[in-house]
């Protein structure tokens, strides 16, 4: 009954079967890919970008410090609300004085509202008396998409260990009216104050309000 090469054939069948099994197990694990985007409580995605001074900026270089990311579009009425009222500049000064790294991020694509060259941005900073640590130019929207930034202004606070502790709106008054700055509950200040005191952040996630980030296609 047994053929001339039963053993060879058997080994072949065996190895094929083994490969199949290994592949099955690997595939079943590959199917478990996690969701992307920022999760409050998880490690902040690492990025590298060039700032308006032409310097390279990365999240890693600020490990050990609190980092605030502020999505910015100087043409957006909601951004204007916080710059024309001086609110954003005051926050930048207050928190950078306490050792916080404040990175303004511009993710507008060329040709879209809010897109600026380095010199235009530096001019704007001078004129507005803005005081971020640096302004990241992100015309390809790489940092923006990494953090799923939706609006300007959208604020992200990262703690000393590189963990996201706040993501969302700047405050609880989602209007473009500068009058609403007064009396608003500022989520960024609340998060930084709590975290610096070693307390949990009371409101770690809100819906950001403002204009959509003007990504390129």
């Amino acid at each position, binding site marked *: 009954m047994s053929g001339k090469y039963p053993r060879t054939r058997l080994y072949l069948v065996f190895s094929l079967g083994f490969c199949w*099994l290994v592949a099955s197990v690997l595939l079943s694990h590959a199917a478990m890919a996690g969701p992307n985007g920022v999760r409050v409580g998880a490690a902040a995605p690492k990025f590298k970008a060039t700032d308006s001074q032409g310097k390279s900026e990365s999240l890693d270089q600020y490990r050990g410090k609190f980092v605030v990311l502020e999505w910015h579009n100087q043409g957006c009425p909601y951004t204007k609300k916080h710059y024309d009222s001086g609110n954003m500049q005051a926050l930048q000064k207050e928190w950078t004085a306490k050792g916080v790294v404040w990175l303004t991020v511009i993710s507008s694509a060329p040709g879209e509202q809010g897109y600026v060259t380095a010199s235009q941005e530096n001019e704007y900073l001078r004129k507005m008396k803005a005081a971020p640590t640096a302004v990241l130019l992100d015309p390809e929207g790489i940092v923006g998409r990494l953090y799923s930034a939706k609006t300007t202004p959208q604020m992200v606070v990262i703690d000393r260990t590189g963990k996201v502790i706040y993501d969302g709106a700047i405050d609880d008054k989602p209007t473009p009216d500068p009058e609403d700055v007064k009396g608003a509950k500022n989520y960024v200040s609340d998060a930084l104050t709590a975290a610096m005191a070693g307390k949990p952040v009371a409101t770690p996630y809100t819906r950001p309000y403002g204009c959509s980030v003007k990504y390129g296609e």
Partner: protein
Amino acid sequence: MRIFRAVTVFLAALASGVAAIAVGPSADVAHLHVQLVMPNPTLVGGSPANVGIYFKLEPGWHIYWKNAGDSGEPPRVRWTLPEGITASDFQFPAPKRLPLGPLMDFGYEDEVLFPLTISVSPKVKTGPVSLHAKVDWLVCREQCIPGKAELDTTATVVDHLLKDAPGAGAGAEIYKRLLGRLPEPLPSGDRVVFQSYAGGFRLALATGQRETTAEFFPSEQNILNNPAPQTVTPTATGLILELAKDPNLAANPAQLAGVLELSGGRNYDIAALPGTVAAPKPPTTALDVLRATGLAFLGGIILNLMPCVFPVLFIKGLSLVQSSGAERHKQRSHGLVYTLGIVFSFWVLVGALLGLRAAGLTLGWGFQFQSPVFLGLMASLLFFLGLSLAGQFEIGLTLTSAGGSLAQKQGYAGSFFTGVLAVVVATPCTAPFMGAAVGFALSQSAFVTFAIFTALALGLALPYLLLTLQPAWTRLLPRPGAWMEVLKQATAVPIFGTVIWLVWVLAQTRGAEAVAALLAAFLLLAVAGWIMGRWPAKRVPNLAAGLVIVGAIAVCVYGVTALAAPVASAAETGAPGASKWEPWSQAAVDKYRAAGRPVFVDFTASWCLSCQVNERVALRTPQVETAFKSANVALLKADWTNRDDAIANALTTLGRSGVPAYALYAPGSDAPTLLPEALTPGIVTDALSKLPAATNASNR
């Protein structure tokens, strides 16, 4: 006309004593036209009048729904009204999805009407009144421009409604044309529920007919991942819609409210409550089936190492040795018949399971062990078999008679029967890899189900089959001799062990009376065996033995059914001082998760030997109990020893169809982690150590 209106507005302002900045009923501002619409400008005390704010937008520009999505803000209106007159909130028509690069907004293009009602108290004097609205909005294309306008119109308060009200027609056409875009309440009889799962929600809608398209707009912000595609799976009576969660969603909403748009412009306001929504059958790719088949095959091979199957392997090993003499060429046939027996019995089991399910029963894998009659007969059969192996008598249909002096036919029947036996005893042991494969198989079409179970069967049969197919390997086995008799008798030991386990399972659920009856059945079987051993191959004694066996079966069946007494559930029989395990219920899971505690659910059954082993070697060890305690884990035990539809449904939700299954819910995430079917203390403590948020929650 315009002069007339200005005059009436002026008069109205005077009459009501309100200093209104009259700018007219409409305004043309950047990129849009906004208008206060009142189809019938008469107000009657006690009956609300219809009003609307109408926007006509330039091409490409949009304004927003009440939940604007990822960016944007809905329009708002603030009224200045004479005393006694009040305005309701805006009603929002069904929106559109407005994709914007990687973002998704919800809003309106072209034109939209926001209807509302104005109510008049009967005390308001008749005559003209001014209705004044401050409207503000955000209008966007690539850029966003906030806008505002002050609109007003005049209405006349009258005693009773006139059929042909004066001034009817100003905006009446707009109102009539666009009012239909408001979502309607869900027709009575239609049902909608949702279930949360890892990363998303499943929304099930039953309208009574197959639905093919749907879009869901959530009323609340930060519930869904807005740009994620919404997957529609039509069902016979409606559809299942899969929605991706906002990755930062901390706790599941108590209800999923919003607008559901169906084909043909049907828009419904829905508020889905939590319920059970089985995962829609995914469009099964050949790869999925291949993968599940592979897992099932692997699981089948591993099943050979499980304690349940050990006794059967003993028997098979014995038969192999016995026949290692002259009749090697027949071994191959016996291996194939054994395989056939395994495949056949898997098919019968699956066929029965699918049939019972089709009949409306909620059953899962291992369902036969939920039947006490099955357990009793199974225990009796194994006991009788054990007696034979121990040497009390020779069964005509010797299970180990592959070859030898017995008729060929009987030998094959024996091989086939051991295959059946292997499957029957194997079922309570879910081997690693098997759980996922079986869960997948039972959610697929019958053809795929059978294919996967066939792979499982072949995996189970493989080790023995290979030995018989490759005579060279059997040559390694020792020559037959007197030692075989010793081995055969030794095989009775694990068989009796299995009997003890089955009796214990019955004792758990049926009580002492039933166990006593079962033991009486065993005694009768022992008598039958004694007769068969004392007077072998004689007609009258064999007939007598047969009668005694029938009597034993009768006693066994009567005992486990009629004498059964309700027994406290196994959940309460934990050792004193052990961790407190509470009985499982979905409500208990929800309660502890709402309290921010991690929850561990042990899906178990007395008849599931793997479960008992896991509980003893892992879950009940001091190491694991300490870890549970320090992580403040709520411990729930879902005991599936008897049929329980709620547990069966919960297992289905987890993608499983049988026990054991271990689910660990981390606080804040509703994706339970499923632990493997074979636990070690390390696996459990590792899983617990990955709960950083858990410790925070408990310390708070």
